[in-house]
């Protein structure tokens, strides 16, 4: 059964090829069937493979499938090979399953769009690339998938190309992630030149053998990989592209910018965890980046008007939690949160999409309101999603995974109190902004009429994801609830275990209590401010200092302004100034030189036969002279 592994990425890839070749000739129905069907079938195969893997694990808990060797030049012989272990199983199942639900949703969401076939073409290519990324056996193949998802992200963000703003958003995403990608490729070069392989397992083994803890190479490699991860996962300082990426259609935001692509960085770090273990400083940096980002994003989310931007910052924040977990060596905990986050974030985005569509394209939450009776499924989906996001105790999956991270941030040998405090405060803020969203959108007076209602293809994914958001956490219960953690055992086959200083019943119990408390307090605050005394809040927000603060958070703490002023404007100014004297001549000079050379050579081709013969003759004489005189 495990031999079917290659089919999992092959199916969406085939879907892409078919949709690309037959673009003009396919009707909507066919495009939907092919587009969603390929991912659906892939999900089925993924489930089969997963069941087979769990039921009868292969030797060493690892399954490698080599398809062929791409090319062989003695030194470098990359193979097209897939590597399946417990972590990949989780990722593959989540990607295909959630991906399928989102594709199903899109068949209805995008149905009035003229680029219907093109949409599914790109989405299939994306799913194929992402699967290649997580299944890759070597870093070169992983990089291929990495670039593929980046390309699809760009294509899908700017999907509605007629509006230039969308194109700019896509471009921004591409450029910012490119910075990270450059760091990544340099890291790959470093690893290859030092350890002479790019196959992941030999690479990790080689690093462990040859590089002592804290060695320069390990630090450099880990830092560069971190750079790549930061770009793709929209963490500080390369996070500015994610909110703007909401310009794409909502299913794109759900799939790419919530459940999958942005988690590629998490996957990368978890996959190369040996390097990070060898470079504890970099690992601490991972944790710090995660914590700072999660706090930053929470504040931003509090101030947003656009429903999707709130969710975007929320994603940024939750990935910060995953980075935090990775940084304190809670590798499995991060994967657990990835899984639950995929469920509830996709749920939230899809529900938001349903709301947006029903209101005829309205994104501003302050123009919504009172929708809880008009759009009941969306409302309940939002409640479930927000509750899971806020980590409401016991009944939501988010509670279990977030609580695990919070307790790990202090309990791990690498944990410290500041990280823990940050995570806890973040949780409070998360709860507040999540329910702010719920209350503003679904309670209060209705501002915009409901013009459409979602039908089964949009509703079914909402129901399924709601269910998963509720029960998905029961695979890993904390210590105080008993010793039921099949997920931890499963992931333990692939990832190093967590070393803790505190993990007793009492400790985890208290931690859970605090997490719950924080979540509930957050809801309470949100209720007070937004339901009970909305007017008072409005007055407060209108005063100068709070207003300025709100604006500041709304604009992402001014990062765009900062980058614009620190990087973009000076570079443009410099380019203008230097256009006439400094570095510009080097570049335009190069181009000018080429063109002049072209002119000269082109003039030599004057069409006269005898000149051609003469040139040949002269050439002959020159060669002859050289050879004879030597």
């Amino acid at each position, binding site marked *: 059964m495990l031999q079917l592994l290659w089919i999992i990425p092959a199916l969406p890839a085939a879907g892409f090829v078919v949709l690309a070749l037959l*673009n*003009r000739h396919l009707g909507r129905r066919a495009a939907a069937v092919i587009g969603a069907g390929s991912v659906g079938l892939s999900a089925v195969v993924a489930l089969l493979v997963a069941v087979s893997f769990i039921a009868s694990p292969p030797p060493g808990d690892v399954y490698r499938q080599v398809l*062929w*060797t*791409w*090319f*062989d*030049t*003695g*030194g470098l012989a990359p193979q*097209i090979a897939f590597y399946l272990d417990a972590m990949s199983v989780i990722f593959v199942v989540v990607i295909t399953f959630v991906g399928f639900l989102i594709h199903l949703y899109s068949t209805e969401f995008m149905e009035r769009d003229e680029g219907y076939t093109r949409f599914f073409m790109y989405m299939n290519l994306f799913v194929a690339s992402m699967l290649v990324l997580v299944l890759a056996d070597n870093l070169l193949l992983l990089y291929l998938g990495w670039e593929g998802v980046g390309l699809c992200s760009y294509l899908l963000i700017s999907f509605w190309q007629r509006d230039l703003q969308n194109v700019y958003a896509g471009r921004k995403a591409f450029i910012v992630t490119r910075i990270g990608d450059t760091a990544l490729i340099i890291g790959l070069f470093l690893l290859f030149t030092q350890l002479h392989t790019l196959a992941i397992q030999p690479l990790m083994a080689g690093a462990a053998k040859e590089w002592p803890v804290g060695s320069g190479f390990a630090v450099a490699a880990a830092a560069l990989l971190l750079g790549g991860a930061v770009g793709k996962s929209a963490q500080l300082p390369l996070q500015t592209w994610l909110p703007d990426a909401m310009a794409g259609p909502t299913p794109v935001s759900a799939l790419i910018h919530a459940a999958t692509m942005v988690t590629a960085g998490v996957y990368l770090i978890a996959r190369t965890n040996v390097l990070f273990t060898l470079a504890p400083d970099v690992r601490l940096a991972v944790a710090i980046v995660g914590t700072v980002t999660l706090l930053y994003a929470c504040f931003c989310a509090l101030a947003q008007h656009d429903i999707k931007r709130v969710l975007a910052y929320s994603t940024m924040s939750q990935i910060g939690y995953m980075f935090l977990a990775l940084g304190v060596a809670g590798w499995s905990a991060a994967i657990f949160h990835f899984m639950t986050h995929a469920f509830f974030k996709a749920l939230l985005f899809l529900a938001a999409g349903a709301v947006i569509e029903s209101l005829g394209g309205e994104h501003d939450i302050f123009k919504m309101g009172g929708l809880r009776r008009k759009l009941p499924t969306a409302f309940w989906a939002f409640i479930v999603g927000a509750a899971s996001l806020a980590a409401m105790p016991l009944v939501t999956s988010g509670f279990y995974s977030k609580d695990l991270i919070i307790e790990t941030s202090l309990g791990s040998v690498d944990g410290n109190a500041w990280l823990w405090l940050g995570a806890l405060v973040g949780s409070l803020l998360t709860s507040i902004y999540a329910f702010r969203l719920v209350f503003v959108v679904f309670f209060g007076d209705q501002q915009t009429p409901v013009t459409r209602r979602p039908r089964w293809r949009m509703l079914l994914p909402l129901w399924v994801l709601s269910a998963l958001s509720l029960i998905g956490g029961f695979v890993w219960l904390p210590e105080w609830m008993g010793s039921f953690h099949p997920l931890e055992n499963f992931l333990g086959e692939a990832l190093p275990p967590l070393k803790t200083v505190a993990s007793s019943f009492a400790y985890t119990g208290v931690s859970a209590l605090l997490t719950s408390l924080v979540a509930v307090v957050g809801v309470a605050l949100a209720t007070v401010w937004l339901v009970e005394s909305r007017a008072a809040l409005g007055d407060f927000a209108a005063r100068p200092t709070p207003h300025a603060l709100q604006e500041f958070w709304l604009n992402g703490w001014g990062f765009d302004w900062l980058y614009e002023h620190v990087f973009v404007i000076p570079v443009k100014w410099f380019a203008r100034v230097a256009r006439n004297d400094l570095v510009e001549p080097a570049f335009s000079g190069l181009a000018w030189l*080429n*063109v002049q*050379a*072209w002119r000269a*050579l*082109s003039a*030599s*081709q004057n*069409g006269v*036969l005898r*000149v*051609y*013969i003469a*040139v*040949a003759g*002269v*050439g*002959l004489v*020159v*060669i*002859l002279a*050289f*050879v*004879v005189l*030597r």
Partner: protein
Amino acid sequence: MTGGDLITLLPLIVLTASPVVVMLAAAFWRSHALALTLTLVGLTATIVSLFIAAGRTSRQVTPLLSFDAYALFYIGLLTAATAGVAILSWNYLQRRHVHPEEYYMLLLTATLGGAVLVASTHFASFFLGLEILSVSLYALIVYPIYRTQFVEAAVKYLVLAGSTSAFLVFGMALVYAETGTMTVSGLAPLLRAGLGGADVVVVLGVVLLLVGVGFKLAVVPFHMWTPDVYQGAPAPVGAYVATVSKGAVFALLLRYFRPVSLDPGSSLFLVFAAVAIASMVAGNLLALRQDNVKRILAYSSIAHLGYLLVAFLATGERAAIAVTFYLVAYFATTLAAFGVVAALSPPERDAESLSDYRGLARRRRWTATAFTIALFSLAGMPLTMGFIGKFYLVTAGAGSALWALIIVLVLTSTVGLYYYTRVVVAMWVRQPDEGAEAMGAAVDGASGAVLAALTAFLIVFGVYPAPLIHLIERAVSSLL
């Protein structure tokens, strides 16, 4: 010559019989379809005969020809390329109302010349093969004869080919005069020394020989005919000249020099290196602002021969494999590119101006895609054969520490990216130019099939080159 030899010679015999059959058939019944069919039958029979000949152990037939695995591989390659050109010519000729039967005959004789070249181990067969190829081409280039540019191109080609053939023969005579040998094995010691301590006469002879070869390969400074002939010849003939004619001569060059590894300090090495660098630089620069697609392809072919020479200068089995792989990739991509030009040409002229291609993607999406992939392969983009080929070339060069050459290769490839992308952008830009609606000529089924096959070939072997590499390894090992 024994009966066994005749079996070894079978490919050549079939290839000789084919044009005779086509000619005879045309004498009785003039039919384009019949001529093409007979041509393709003949070419297919040649390929089948390759397998039969491969079963023989003794490969040398008279001191003139050796049908080892290397020769058989290349004959197969040339035959396949010719078949592609023949199919691409079908619609091209059909639209132009000329008597096409002689065209196919000439195509077959030219291929015969090429086949003789790749199997040649002696000056006599070298000369014969070269001349058969050349004379056939003189007539092919001017075939539709209704436009001045065909005549101009043919005259230029004829005069230059004729004179460089004379150089070639004189060179052979001088070499023979001094060394008394005309075979590959006889020449090996001489070449091994790289012309170091040899007599002036011999040196003169070898250099003159290289003039003849250099012309056919279109390397600097013998390249000046290339753009005019590519532009002036009908598109399928341009494809033929660009691929078979160059490929056959290069294969021969490889055979004559392979048993030898040139000492990097020797004069001969430096001459080749200088020619390679000059070709890479001039070829890429000359194409920079060209507006004529056929001229762009011509200059790019000059550059590609420069790249090939870099790997040619490298030693070791890897280098020979790299050269052959790159040649195969070059064949496929050039045929595809010219095939697009041929398929899109309306009856009164060729589709050679860049403005003919503006907005092509709108009107002919598949053709534009095929052309894009061919251009990307020429540029060396990953996932195409061109990338793997270039990678192998660079690795081969690095293996022999040919740093200067590799640097030039990489830099000029970057320049090359510009003009290839220019064409691609022109195709995918939204608005076609005003007069470009004339390009509405539909791409016929046969050409479309060939283009699709070539495009698939380029991508499949760009991603999974292993089977082809194995085949090439077997071919090359018989050479070394």
